[in-house]
């Protein structure tokens, strides 16, 4: 019934239906077997690649930040160390100067006090001897006055005095 002529071939309507049906079934089967999983996998992969790129970028910036902070901290630590060393040096210098100064002061103190002592002792010795001379003079004078001025007495006095002197020595 459907036997038209197209380019010398017969038109088989049954074949047309068969082609359509088999094509549609083929499409459906491919969809189930391969299309869905493969497109899903490709989608997953592109998602993963995108997220990997993002996270790589993120971690790179993080690493750069970390390096920068570390560099800054290193710099800071170096400055601290320098400052500490400088302070220690200064302290040492000051202390040395102070110790030397103290020693010098003490030495001069000792010297001056020693001089003072000597001076004092000299003064005391001088005062003592002056006192001795005075009392001796007084004693002599008393002895002279207590004896009457006769020759014998005088002689005796002088003798006793001399004796006294000898005794005293």
């Amino acid at each position, binding site marked *: 019934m459907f036997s038209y002529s197209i380019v010398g071939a017969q038109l088989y309507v049954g074949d047309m239906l068969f082609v359509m049906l088999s094509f549609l079934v083929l499409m459906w089967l491919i969809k189930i077997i*391969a299309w869905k999983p493969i497109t899903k996998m490709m989608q997953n*992969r592109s998602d993963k690649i995108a997220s990997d790129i993002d996270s790589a970028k993120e971690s790179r910036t993080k690493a750069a930040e970390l390096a920068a902070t570390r560099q800054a901290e290193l710099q800071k630590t170096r400055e601290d160390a320098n400052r500490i060393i400088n302070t220690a040096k200064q302290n040492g210098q000051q202390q040395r100067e102070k110790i030397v100064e103290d020693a010098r002061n003490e030495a001069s103190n000792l010297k001056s006090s020693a001089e003072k002592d000597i001076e004092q002792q000299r003064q005391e010795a001088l005062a003592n001897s002056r006192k001795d001379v005075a009392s001796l003079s007084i004693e002599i004078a008393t002895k002279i006055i207590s004896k009457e001025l006769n020759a014998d007495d005088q002689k005796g006095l002088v003798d006793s005095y001399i004796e006294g002197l000898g005794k005293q020595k």
Partner: protein
Amino acid sequence: MSGGTPSTFEFLGLTFNVGNMISILIACAVVLGLVYALSRHLTMKPGKGQNVLEYAVDFTNGIVNSSIPGATSKFLGLWGFTLFMFIIIANLEGLFLHIDVSGVAYVKSPTSDPVVTMTLSLMTMTLAQFLGIRKLGYKGHFENYLKPFVFFLPINLFEEFTNFLTLGLRLFGNILSGEMLLGIIVGMAHGGPVIWIGAFILELVWTGFSVFIGCIQAYVFVTLSSVYISRKIELED
């Protein structure tokens, strides 16, 4: 294609061609087996088979997406992939295996029969009309036939018909001529041992060329189908 009448039978008042049916079933089975074998053990890091399949998918997606932009192409990707695989396998089928029994071809390229190619072409055109109406609505779709002027209506209708005709006949003609020439070369080979060697070399060359033609025609068919569909789903200025 030796000129004998094909073996047919009638069922529910419809005429079926046994040779076509066998060939189509073989083509479908080969496509399905190929796709099934390549799509086992899908992993994030693709293996050999998966790479081949993904390359094919990317290739057909590229064809479809380059002419049809936007959201409709998710279904069209599957459609383009199936169409491409089916046509390329169908084109090559007759080059590898061609069984004639007393002048009746039982296994050949299904695409060397105009009924098959015109059916594929008709399906494409139907799909284009359907997607056009779904995208633009009946009004927008049929107004496209009146553009740029009302007088273009017959030209547009005629163009629609010629698109349908050329899409199917191009594929059919290319594959039929390839098979026909192969048949003639095989016929020549019966002439004697010297001619046999000459025919063998000629056959080799022509088969290689036919493989090339078959791949090109599959690509052309999918590309043109995409173009026809894309022209239906956008409003003409």
